[in-house]
């Protein structure tokens, strides 16, 4: 049965009517029009759907929207401050950290969690942190370089 849940999305309170089985990723995309959160797999492995729940990176395809009730969700759309890109977004641009861009929102959300808790990660720590994010295009080199640049820029 549908129910109305309230959660904070990118800083603003939102109410949505959802079935308990609705996955957070689909609710964000289809009901809240936040299509920056991508869905790349059916097996919780690709990380394209990564968002923050109370500041921690989580795969939103592996979370029910009802589990997020009362919590703060941040999606890629909520990362930039007004019209200035977030340092990670800028660094992905500067370092050519994307090709098709499908994995990018998830990469950036995971990297943002890493940098919030470990502002100066080593290359190995960056690679370890991004283990749950798959990219079919770049070969990861420039993604790692972008995270390094963003860490230096902070």
């Amino acid at each position: 049965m549908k129910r109305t849940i309230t959660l904070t999305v990118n800083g603003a309170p939102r109410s949505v009517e959802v079935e308990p089985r609705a996955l957070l990723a689909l609710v964000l995309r289809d009901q809240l029009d936040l299509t920056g959160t991508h869905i790349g797999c059916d097996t919780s492995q690709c990380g394209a759907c990564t968002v923050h729940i109370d500041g921690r990176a989580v795969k939103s395809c592996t979370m029910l929207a009802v589990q997020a009730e009362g919590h703060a969700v941040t999606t890629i759309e909520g990362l930039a401050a007004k019209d200035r890109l977030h340092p990670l977004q800028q660094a992905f641009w500067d370092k050519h950290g994307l090709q098709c861009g499908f994995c990018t929102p998830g990469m950036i959300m995971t990297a943002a969690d890493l940098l919030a808790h470990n502002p100066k990660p080593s290359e190995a720590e960056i690679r370890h942190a991004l283990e749950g994010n798959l990219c079919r295009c770049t070969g990861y080199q420039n993604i790692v370089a972008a995270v390094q640049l963003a860490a230096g820029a902070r």
Partner: protein
Amino acid sequence: MIPTSFEYVRAKNLSDALKAMGKNTKVIAGGHSLLPLLRFRLAQPDMLIDIGQLRELKGIKRSGGGLKIGAATTYRELLESKELKALYPLIAEVTEHIGDLQVRNAGTIGGGLAHADPAADMPPVMLVLDATFVLQSKTGKRSVPARKFFKGPFTTALKPNELLTEIQLPALPKGVGTAYASFEQAASGYALAGAVALIAIAKGLITRADLAFTGLGDAPFLAPAAAKLVATTGDASLIDQVAQAAVAGVEANDDVHAPAAYRLHLGRVAARRALTQALAQAQRPG
């Protein structure tokens, strides 16, 4: 895919959760084992009871020389505990191996143990550390040693109306070393074969040696062969013999990822590495 329909309640407290458990209900903690099952419709419960946010089931407390860990403590929270790292570096090391950053942010230690995936990383750690699990239902509580908890693939001593509420870790002896060595299936990160070792020494001789495997069989298991190391100095050839004996006669899983013979080979190598590393750590001064 989207799961079949179910009702959802977020338990307000532990006793609420225990009362709500009934026919065709499932508890959900981090959901990182359950949701994949629901999405493939391999499980079709009528109701989910969310215990993932229950304060009563969260946190790490000192208890004697050991620790008590709430079942709904996430892997991330384990890694953030300085106390855990100081007392059981093995748990911290193994936790870093589980899934990926996002999985560790959501998954809980109790959820992983209750799920009892035969290739999960944490169950053999619990065997080697000789942990005790507190299982609770609305009618009472009981304690079950980890060594009697894992019954088979995805099968444990938990009754359908019981929750795993707490993991109790006894104090480790002085002069102890612990290690984990595993070979992971590249895509999933689950262990094809993994070995956990604990070695304690006093006056240069081994006083306790425990070795447990994951990924090899239906359930994690302790290898009795490790006892051969006790009262020796644990030289390399004896460790090799023990590693070999530990996997001898084991009926290993056989699947697309690894045939049984290869799994046993990996198990033997993992055992040798884990024992060697645990011994070196035990021998380290201070």
